[in-house]
């Protein structure tokens, strides 16, 4: 399923960047006949700097708000040109997807144009220096939700992007984490087989923005799943499917305390995070168990 080719190479992402791993793997699954569009964000900023071009497949940067629309355009254009056997792929960050890009994403899904949209979620606007996005989690300090003494950083919860997308009645949607890369790769493969639009929301830690060592990306990306703070699920045929239903959650405190962005949090804040997690798991308890 995964090709030896490297389509994303020599880019200028920070060392240990989770987003770049997601991009690299997605392209290794989809292969060279992939028409990729990305909006502004780390994954385009690090890879299109003339004359250094890190994508080995066809790729075009979209205006920040336009990913979904460019995908439709690529698809229509490819059809007009009579192309066969290719993938239209959009890859955008959390900000580019859940905030400014949601209009175009919603339109894309509504049209059900064939294409795969992957949101790599590093939980803030990283390329511009760690500002809060709609997917920044509760308690994280960012430059626009700074944790000054007595405050908790961001007091909003993550927008429920996966279910918002699913509510559109999309052909296929999934959540994933770069910590479980085979799972992610499998979901990309599944998405590519769907007729119509598909969507994958993959959590991708950012050492720079999260305040972890560059070597910790994968550990943290696993821990967020193992603690139940992120769930792995799919949506297809109009139904939700949970991929993992941990019997026991790993220690949330450990996950939180290792990250610089959470270092101001007190025990009660961590308890609040646990409470919110449990509420989520209550809600998704109705999900089917996945294939």
């Amino acid at each position, binding site marked *: 399923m*995964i090709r*030896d*080719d*490297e*389509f*994303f*190479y*020599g*880019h*200028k*992402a*920070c*060392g*240990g*960047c*989770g987003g*770049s*791993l997601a991009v*690299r*793997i997605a392209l290794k699954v989809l292969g*060279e006949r992939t028409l990729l569009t990305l909006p502004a964000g780390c994954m385009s900023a690090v890879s299109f700097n*003339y*004359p*250094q*071009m*890190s*994508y*080995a*497949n*066809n*790729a075009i940067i979209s205006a920040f708000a336009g990913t979904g629309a460019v995908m439709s355009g690529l698809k229509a254009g490819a059809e007009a040109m009579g192309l066969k056997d290719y993938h239209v792929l959009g890859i955008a960050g959390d900000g580019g997807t859940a905030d400014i890009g949601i209009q175009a994403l919603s339109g894309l899904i509504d049209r059900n144009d064939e294409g795969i949209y992957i949101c790599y979620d590093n939980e803030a606007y990283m390329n511009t220096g760690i500002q809060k996005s709609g997917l920044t989690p509760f308690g994280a300090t960012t430059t626009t939700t700074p944790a000054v003494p007595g405050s908790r950083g961001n007091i909003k919860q993550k927008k429920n992007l996966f279910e918002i997308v699913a509510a559109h009645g999309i052909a296929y949607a999934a959540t994933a984490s770069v910590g479980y*890369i*085979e799972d992610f790769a499998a979901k990309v493969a599944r998405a590519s087989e769907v007729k119509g639009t598909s969507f994958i929301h993959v959590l991708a830690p950012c*050492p720079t923005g999260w305040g972890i*060592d*560059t*070597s*910790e*990306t*994968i*550990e943290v990306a696993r821990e967020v799943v193992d603690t139940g703070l992120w769930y792995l699920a799919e949506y297809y045929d109009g139904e939700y499917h949970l991929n993992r239903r941990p019997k026991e959650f790993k220690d949330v405190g450990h996950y939180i305390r290792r990250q610089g962005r959470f270092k101001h949090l007190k025990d009660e804040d961590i308890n609040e995070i646990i409470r919110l997690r449990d509420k989520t798991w209550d809600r998704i308890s109705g999900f089917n168990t996945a294939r």
Partner: protein
Amino acid sequence: MIKASLEKRKKITKLSQLPQGASCRAGVLVDKNAGWRNKCPVFDPDKCIGCHQCYMYCPDGVISKKGKKIQIDYDFCKGCGICEKICKTGAIYMEEER
């Protein structure tokens, strides 16, 4: 194998050398990611069991399969240390750069 590859950077002296429009051949590298590393992954083939987990998880894709083992492209390795942590057999370890 398809992969962006290093070329010599061309000095642009005439407008006609530039593309019209903002497009460019894909997969052209002119700079190594040099100077990014504090630490450098060192590979010990003897300990390697060829599970290729390091290959899967390297964000920069600089670990390639070489038969049952692997090899690292130091021109583009950033020294993040993920491979060291991923390798269960200790076949990769980080050393101070230089």
